[in-house]
């Protein structure tokens, strides 16, 4: 297949929009060729994961673009970095990792990226709209944008995300195209053992991640009371347990008003009935610690906690304050809102440490994050044993608060 280039593509390659854009477009052309994409399409926004430091190459790539005087051509948000730039005292990594990690984050700002440093850009003022073509990185954000918003992105990642931002173009293949967005796997929830929508959502998320892999699943039977934050947790769990880039929740997500719409009227290849026992087993797999184990910390907000989640958390914490270290990861925009209405002070008084710009599961040496950590995040539960060497107790928000007050893993 031959790659078709539009005038803007040849202009970009020829350096008419600067040397950095030409460098980025060369990379995109080679990539699109290798992926057998037929051409490129315009994007209206990008979200970049490359601000996380993975070694010298992370710095070399972005500083090369800066040296070529690059500027992003579409509004571009940044994912979490390796550092909390607002609370650097929380960082316990080595000096070089700290310096280079911060340099990578700053260099992206030099390219005109917005210093959002969040893995939940879809819950900030930069939320994309239905049907928009975007180039997003960060697995949970990709799933949310495709599934819950109906914006269109492939699983972009390191280097490609910045290349798309510097050019405003993305290879026209995969989930950018309607035909590729249909569900081939149907998961019918026949019963749930949980009385809250939170745990049901995460249990089915982890299940489709494990069983659907890269395929698109339609989930039928979720409660109409399932919230946006539940769907966010579902997607994050699915993208951690598998390579899920999109799901449909029948009656809840915009491309799935009906099951037929989700499958685009084509017979699915897999139809799976999910029982209460399946959901219970799926959630149990997220915990490595035993009930009753002494707790060393609670960490919430992977992905970053939203204002609505803080509104649920605050009265619970006020009623039963934590006696173990209690971390909540969030973004600058939400922190500013919490500071403006006094909630940040209340949380601090209750013993909560707020982490912004980064995430506890990336900060291998945050004080207190060893031993048994409890979380309501399927993503944190999936990665923390490997990243932090910690044991994980997964629980609902209510269980996390109750356990923090008791100092041990409590089930409700």
């Amino acid at each position: 297949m031959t790659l078709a280039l539009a005038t803007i593509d040849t202009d970009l390659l020829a350096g008419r929009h600067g040397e950095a854009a030409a460098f980025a477009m060369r990379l995109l052309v080679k990539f699109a060729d290798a992926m057998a994409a037929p051409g490129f399409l315009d994007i209206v926004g990008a979200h970049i994961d490359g601000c996380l430091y993975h070694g010298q190459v992370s710095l070399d790539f972005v500083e090369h673009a800066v040296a070529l005087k690059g500027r992003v051509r579409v509004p571009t948000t940044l994912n979490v970095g390796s550092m909390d730039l607002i609370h650097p005292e929380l960082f316990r990594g080595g000096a070089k990792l700290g310096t280079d990690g911060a340099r990578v984050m700053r260099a992206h700002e030099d390219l005109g990226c917005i210093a959002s440093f969040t893995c939940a850009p879809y819950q900030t003022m930069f939320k994309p709209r239905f049907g928009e073509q975007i180039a997003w990185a960060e697995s949970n954000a990709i799933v949310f944008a495709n599934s819950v918003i109906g914006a269109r992105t492939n699983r972009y990642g390191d280097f490609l995300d910045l290349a798309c931002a510097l050019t405003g173009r993305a290879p026209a293949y995969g989930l950018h195209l309607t035909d590729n967005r249909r569900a081939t796997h149907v998961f019918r929830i026949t019963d749930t053992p949980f009385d809250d929508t939170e745990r049901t959502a995460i249990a089915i998320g982890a299940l489709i991640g494990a069983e659907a892999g890269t395929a698109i699943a339609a989930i039928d039977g979720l409660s109409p009371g399932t919230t946006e934050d539940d769907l966010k947790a579902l997607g994050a769990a699915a993208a951690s347990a598998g390579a899920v880039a999109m799901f449909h929740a029948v009656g809840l997500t915009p491309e799935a008003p009906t099951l037929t719409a989700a499958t685009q009227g084509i017979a699915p290849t897999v139809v799976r009935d999910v029982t209460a026992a399946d959901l219970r087993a799926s959630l149990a797999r997220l915990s490595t610690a035993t009930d009753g184990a002494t707790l060393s910390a609670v960490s919430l907000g992977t992905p970053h906690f939203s204002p609505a989640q803080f509104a649920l958390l605050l009265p619970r914490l006020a009623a039963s304050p934590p006696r173990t270290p209690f971390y909540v990861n969030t973004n600058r925009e939400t922190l500013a809102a919490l500071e403006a209405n006094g909630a940040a002070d209340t949380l601090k008084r209750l013993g909560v440490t707020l982490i912004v710009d980064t995430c506890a599961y990336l900060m291998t040496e945050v004080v207190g994050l060893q031993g048994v950590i409890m979380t309501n995040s399927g993503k944190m539960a999936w990665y923390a044993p490997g990243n932090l060497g910690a044991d994980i107790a997964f629980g609902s928000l209510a269980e996390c608060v109750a356990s923090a007050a008791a100092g041990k893993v409590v089930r409700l």
Partner: protein
Amino acid sequence: MTETIRISGVMLVGGAAAGDVFALAEPLSFWGGFDATTGAVTDHRHPDRGASLNGRVVAVASARGSSSGASVLAEAIRLGTAPAAFVLSTRDAILTVGCQVAVELYGKFCPIVLVTDDDLVRVRAAKRAVVATDGPDATIDIS
């Protein structure tokens, strides 16, 4: 003397390389599963944990896991700990972009060749492989 067989493939990333074949038992996530400072597989759940991929022609269907694997692979190519080449049976985005960036930034080549499922089986069974690319085409001489 062992017989050499030539297999044709499609170039995903250009370059020339030779090395002993390493047939990964299953797809590997380079992020969290591979140490760029040593070239060793570190994923606790992977059957090849502890093995070195440095200088080997890695034959496997695809990569797995986080797109940050592209950074880890590019960093390994920069450090000289990476595989010599990849032979894959899918157009893997993560490995492709990692190898492309190493070419752009450092002029270091870790070619990737796409082959059919049947040919991948033959490469995985071979001892040694010599990879060469010419425009969109590629050859793998196995012995």
